[in-house]
């Protein structure tokens, strides 16, 4: 924890109260340049490929990773897999 130091009289003297010196242009401080940016603004936005999120979504529900039953049946029919092959390949064991 840090505590702000108490303001001094000098802190209250702002440019508005100081008359410009003769034959000299008024100095204009660049806006906000001295103000530090918020940590959120300074931090670069990190992006990750959508595939990573898709995978974590799949793994959040392990049953969801497996193929639908109808699709397993269709695949078995197309590739001539026996019911033992299907059991070996697609039985959810993880």
């Amino acid at each position: 924890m840090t505590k702000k130091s108490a303001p001094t009289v000098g802190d209250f003297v702002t440019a508005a109260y100081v008359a410009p010196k003769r034959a000299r242009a008024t100095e204009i401080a660049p806006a906000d340049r001295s103000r530090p940016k918020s940590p959120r603004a300074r931090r670069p936005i990190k992006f990750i490929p959508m595939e990573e999120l898709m995978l974590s979504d799949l793994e959040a529900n392990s049953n969801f990773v497996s193929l639908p039953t109808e699709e397993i049946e269709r695949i078995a029919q197309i590739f001539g897999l026996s019911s033992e092959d299907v059991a070996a390949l697609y039985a959810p064991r993880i």
Partner: protein
Amino acid sequence: MTAFIGIGSRGGLRSFGGTQFAQVNRWCTTWFKRDLIHFSQALTMRFNGANMVLRLISEDRLLVRMQIFQAGTRIASIAFRIDPQQQRAFLSWTVLTPATQRTGAFKHILQNLLLVLRDCGITRISLVASLSHGGYVWAIYGFVPETAGQWARLAGVLRRKLLAIASELKPAELDAVQKLVASPDRLALRALAGSAIPVRDTTLGKHLLMGTEWKGELDFSDGPSVLIYLKRIGVVP
């Protein structure tokens, strides 16, 4: 040579312009049957806003790059091409912030995209399944290799990976997997991806396909593939 458009909260138009604005607007009216604002709003549904850059490339192909915002913060960027004459779309890349995990944001992006592509008469989406996760994830999401040649090339890679773990599989398992890898049918990729045989703390499908690269497509006329995709992106429960 682009058009740009900014959509704010509740679909309000925030900014627009660009040298191709009129041409892109005409493209939307022709192929999407509504104007560019509606096109942008459809892609921004369920988000707080978006900045889009659109460009017509070679006749009627539209290239779209889009930054998506939620609560004032950029949460995603996506790039894709739509070729309505060929009835094809190509999903180039999509990135999101890690904070969007478990928010379903990527599903909303894919749902919006699907609706827009459907309204543009697109019948297939293609992409390059790559990076560390893409080769496995897109197969699980219903995509299959674009051509038999693509599948043959990928099958060669999978055969080599399978050899390295052959001793860890039971003879019956190895037999069934070898049958799939040797098949000329590109649907074999899905059959392999869905395999739940445990291998090295994961499943066989994931072990074989993680880190692979292949050109894939989702054909809307293939009912089972579309159904898998719709389920994965949350359109169908």
